[in-house]
């Protein structure tokens, strides 16, 4: 407040003092604005860098997706190939294996029958030997 009772010199002095104070404050405000601007610029730069990073990540993920698609197609192709091979090549082999198994079984059956025949033949031979001995010695163990 200007005191009207004071001298003009005092008033001017006060005004000048106020102006100095205001200049100082204005300078402080400008400094603050400069700092804010600098900080904003830094933030903007970081934001741009982040944006670039995000774009790179998005690009990488797109590339990954493309690669995964390629791998999926390869895997599908491999499955189709395996299925084709199994139906066209393994099925006849399996049939052959079954046939060989049947032959083996038949051979085993023949072996079992042959063993039985051998046993019966041995028993008959033994009986003939016994009868021969009894006939030769004229005595049977009855």
């Amino acid at each position, binding site marked *: 407040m200007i005191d009207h009772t004071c001298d003009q010199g005092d008033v001017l002095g006060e005004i000048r003092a106020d102006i100095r104070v205001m200049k100082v404050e204005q300078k402080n405000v400008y400094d603050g604005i400069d700092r804010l601007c600098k900080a904003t610029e830094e933030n903007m730069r970081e934001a741009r860098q982040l944006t670039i990073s995000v774009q790179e990540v998005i690009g990488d993920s797109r590339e990954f997706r493309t690669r995964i698609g390629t791998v999926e197609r390869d895997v599908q192709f491999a499955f189709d190939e395996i299925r084709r091979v199994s139906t066209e090549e393994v099925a006849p082999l399996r049939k052959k294996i079954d046939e060989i198994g049947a032959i*083996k*079984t038949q051979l085993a*059956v023949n072996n079992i*029958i042959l*063993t039985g025949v051998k046993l*019966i033949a041995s028993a008959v031979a*033994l*009986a003939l*030997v016994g009868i021969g*001995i009894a006939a030769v010695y004229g005595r049977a163990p009855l």
Partner: protein
Amino acid sequence: MNCETLLCYVPHAITLLLCLAIILTAVNNIAMAKSDKGTTFIKHAVWLVSGFQLMAITVFLINQSAWVFSDNVSLVGSDVAVSWLIYNYLDQLFHITIAIIINTVLRTHIMYNCRLFQEYCGCDPRDGLIGKETN
């Protein structure tokens, strides 16, 4: 006629061998029928036939040994004795043939079962034997 050499006892030994073979085969048949997964009728039939075989051979062995140890050998003539020996051998051959046929049929049956249900019974069909029990 008295027999001086050990050869005279060979017919005894042959009789014993044949009886032993019949007993072993019949016991094996009973064991195989027990472990086989065939029908109950076949099992009962095998048990019945093998059981009668075992009983017949046991009674025959008892009678034969009693006859021999009681020294009644000279009571009958040689012709009668030899003809009875032939009869005994034929009887034993009949029994052993029946037992071996049953054994062969059972082995074949078990082997085919193994081949058909290989994963189920866990046995090798090439063995053609009883294999493992699954239960």
